[in-house]
């Protein structure tokens, strides 16, 4: 087990093992996303209240799940990098940040689009929406901080610290915004109290969520691989690899 973790820390070994893993995640993502979206868009029954507009949920919910999971993964990768100085962890954190920001944006945007038919407005200062908006700002801060340093090592460590500080803030924001909203304004709408969903609606959602996660893992592996090649370009094994491929 420990030997496995140690090996995982070596960029060369990670490059090799991810080459084998990557296709499986791409295939899984493709199958799950195709099956899930066809089922969700064509076969799932229309909602008795919202008609067909509820189908935005099949993009919105997985994106919102991922937006939060990616931030947590980024903070964990930052911790691993700070404690054990494992370079691959930082490379993964670096490529995850824009992905997470994109997922947060997608969930905010799809939420706004969904809001028009159901709530009659693009934006509400609802607890959920507000904490997602703040999550987007946290992502942008991490990305901007990483870009601001000229030395790569400082950039990596600064971004790791900020990701760890930010992840403490996420549950605080989530609950504080809940209280802030419910204490002073009556909750007119809430996306949290979903009507109990029938199985035909819930299963495609589960498939879509799994598909999004596989897509994220595949994309992170792919981007980490190119980040490894970029950062390790002076190493001999990378140069040999390039010569081999011609």
């Amino acid at each position, binding site marked *: 087990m420990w030997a496995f973790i140690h090996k995982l820390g070596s960029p060369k070994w990670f490059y090799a093992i991810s080459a084998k893993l990557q296709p499986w995640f791409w295939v899984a993502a493709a199958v799950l996303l195709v099956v899930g979206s066809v089922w969700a868009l064509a076969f799932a029954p229309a909602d008795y209240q919202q008609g067909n507009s509820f189908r935005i949920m099949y993009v919105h919910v997985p994106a919102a799940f991922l937006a939060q999971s990616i931030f947590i993964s980024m903070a964990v990768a930052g911790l691993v990098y*700070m404690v054990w100085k494992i370079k691959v962890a930082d490379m993964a954190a670096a490529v995850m940040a824009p992905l997470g920001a994109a997922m947060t944006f997608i969930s905010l945007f799809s939420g706004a689009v969904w809001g028009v038919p159901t709530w009659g407005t693009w934006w509400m200062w609802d607890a959920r929406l507000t904490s997602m908006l*703040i999550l987007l*700002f*946290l992502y*942008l*801060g991490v990305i*901007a*901080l990483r870009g*601001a*340093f*000229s*030395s790569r*090592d*400082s*950039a990596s*460590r*600064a971004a790791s*610290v*900020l990701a*760890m*500080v*930010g992840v*403490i*803030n996420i549950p*605080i*924001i989530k609950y*504080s*915004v809940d*209280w*802030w909203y419910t*204490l*002073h304004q009556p909750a007119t709408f809430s996306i949290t109290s979903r009507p109990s969903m029938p199985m035909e609606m819930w299963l495609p959602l589960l498939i879509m969520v799994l598909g999004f996660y596989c897509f994220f893992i595949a994309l992170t592996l792919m981007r980490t691989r190119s980040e490894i090649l970029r950062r390790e370009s002076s190493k001999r094994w990378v140069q040999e690899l390039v010569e081999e491929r011609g």
Partner: protein
Amino acid sequence: MLEDPRGLRHLPIEEAPGNLSDALLAMVKRDLTLMLRHRGEVLNPLVFFALVITLFPIGISPDPALLTVIAPGLLWVAALLAALLSLDSLFRSDYDDGCLEQLLLAPQPLAALSLAKVAVHWLLTGLPLALMAPLLGVMLALPAGSYGVLALSLALGTASLSLIGAIGAALTVGLARGGVLLSLLVLPLYIPVLIFGAGAVQAAIMGDGVLAHLAILGALLAVGLILAPWAIAASLRISING
């Protein structure tokens, strides 16, 4: 004395000059003296606070009924921005003249020393802001019973703001133009404090219990006191080495 195989002599930790409390006291004294010699830096956030508050009745409406409703949020947001304004200078001059490197080399833990710096920062920005806020509250037609809560919530809350802000200041002190980046990093982290701070004042206006809000502000401060010094110390090390 310990003998090193390389022939170097090491001072045991006990013999390191000055214990922790001496070092902290010296740190607080030094920072207070330095800050009080630059009165402008202490006064600027206060003037900024008053100015921003003045803008709202001009920009929105001088109607006292409307102002009462928005006053808690306005006062808190303006105080938060004023505190943010003073952050950039927290480590800047020490970084420029090399004092920060000496702090890193000092035998005392850097986390404790940075906590002393943050304490001085709060004494000279957060506390004056809290004391000044009731005066501006009068101008915003805040009802009489809420001044104490306003000052207390700001005094508690700005301490958390100083702690959180110091992490951002430490991360950006090595960057030439860290000012805008600093606000991007720090403002999202300020939001919980803002929510409960403004919530306390709002509860006081509406005659609800304020204790819950103040207790949560205190809890945030306690968590900040435990965790922030380590993050500040780690960030300072990154900025110095980078």
